[in-house]
């Protein structure tokens, strides 16, 4: 498939088949098949070390897969000739550790790639950045530096930064895992609104309530394979596989311990 012009890259779907990734002799992903339809929200859940984050990072090639294919909105990401930078412009990514640029203000964080990559005019870039900062409720902090913000605020800026590129697909890598509990809700509600607006989203998360309420489909991963997948309500509400059941019983009820006295 040829790389589509960016104008056609509107609602991006993702098609992953047979994806493999190893670090040395350690196989992290053992042949993953997964697809996200345009406008769909898909959550990846599973224990740590199951390969969810690696899978997500393969989608925009922050990790180089060892086998299989990934197609993102017409871009054959695994084709060695694909213009990876062009593809990444349309794929927003939100990291667990925010990764805001500490030497730039909040506004500059949201404009730097618009200016340097998309070559937008400064006034247009500023307007776009402010619009997205308003969307995440932080327009009033535009002139601050990231170090002056709380973790939750930083993550909201990171979302605004990604949105300012007008992405067709958003990747979230455990966006709330590094946050104080009281700020998790703000970030999740922004993601909820994004989903409502029709953004295509692939989300690695440990927030089961979010996955159940917002995701169209959920993939449960363990040991580098997809163990179970399907509509969110089914996988989370009525899991079929023993491993899924075990995992969910642990995360949904953290006090549940298998010591046989309950």
């Amino acid at each position, binding site marked *: 498939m040829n790389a589509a012009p960016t104008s056609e890259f509107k609602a991006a779907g993702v098609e992953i088949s047979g994806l493999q990734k190893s670090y040395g002799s350690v196989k992290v992903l053992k042949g993953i098949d997964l697809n996200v339809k345009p406008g769909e929200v898909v959550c990846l859940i599973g224990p740590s070390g199951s390969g969810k984050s690696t899978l997500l990072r393969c989608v925009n090639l922050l990790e180089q897969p060892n086998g299989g294919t990934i197609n993102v909105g017409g871009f054959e990401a695994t084709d060695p000739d694909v213009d990876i*930078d062009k593809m*990444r412009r349309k794929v927003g990514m939100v990291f667990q550790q925010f*990764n805001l*640029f500490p*030497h730039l203000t909040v506004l500059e964080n949201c404009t730097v790639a618009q200016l340097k990559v998309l070559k937008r005019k400064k006034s247009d870039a500023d307007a776009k950045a402010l619009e997205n900062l308003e969307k995440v409720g932080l327009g009033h902090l535009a002139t601050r*530096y990231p*170090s002056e913000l709380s973790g939750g605020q930083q993550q909201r800026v990171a979302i605004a930064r*990604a949105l300012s590129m007008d992405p067709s697909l958003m990747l979230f890598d455990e966006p709330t895992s590094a946050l104080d509990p009281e700020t998790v809700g703000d970030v999740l509600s922004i993601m909820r609104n994004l989903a409502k607006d029709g953004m295509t989203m692939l989300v690695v998360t440990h927030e089961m309530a979010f996955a159940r309420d917002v995701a169209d489909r959920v993939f449960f991963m363990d040991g580098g394979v997809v163990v179970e997948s399907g509509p969110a309500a089914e996988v989370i509400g009525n899991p079929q596989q023993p491993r899924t059941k075990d995992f969910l019983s642990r995360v949904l009820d953290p006090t549940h311990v298998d010591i046989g006295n309950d």
Partner: protein
Amino acid sequence: MAMTARERARVSKIAQIAIFIIVVAILLISMNWPKVLDSFFAFDKIGPMFPDLLIVGLKNTIFYTAISFAFGLTLGLILALMKMASFGPYRWFATGYIEFFRGVPALLVLLALGYGLPSAFPEAKWPYAVVVMVSLGLVAAAYIAETLRAGLQAVPKGQTEAARSLGMPAWRAMVTIVIPQAFRIVLPPLTNEIILLTKDTSLAFILGSVAGQYELTKFGRDGITSLGAGITPLVVAGAVYLVITVPLSLLTRRMESKTGRGKR
């Protein structure tokens, strides 16, 4: 001996002070004072050093430092990037270069190039300042390269990942995101490097210079032979070095305490 911890600390403190006073006293008493005053502090005789010491010597010392640093910084940045390159031979070259020029004395490099460059490239002209710049710059580049590499690697990997995920090519992520952050980290050690270079320019006179090219140490040495003030001219030249290096040193300390307070 039953002493409390507090008593022991007091005794130890008194002992330290006593030793210090005794050592200083022995030195002061055994010193030949008239001679010392005569050869170190004959400030009445150094008038002829001025104003040339400042308008020529100080100027040239700063000039040689500046061009050597500019040369060393450029080369050091290239070496730092080579050292981090994925292409093996680049890394090997950079490693070899750094080990070599950190291992040999700057004076030796200066002499080798001072005599070697003109015979290696007989067609080209080798102005004195250029030889000094290249020699000291080659040595400084080795130290600067390691400083810059450490600075670039101190910027978290997530910064590059965030930049790349926004569609920036690798060079753009480096220029716009990584280097500005690394620059803040390396500013104190780089200032330190300028201090070392300032002092190394004192080696330059060994190549034999003419009047307009004299730097501070050359003035000091000439003063010894011409003024009959003992080594007072060197003391004066040394004081002028301190005028350059102490403010830089204070600046470094201020920058360090600032970065210490911490971003992120």
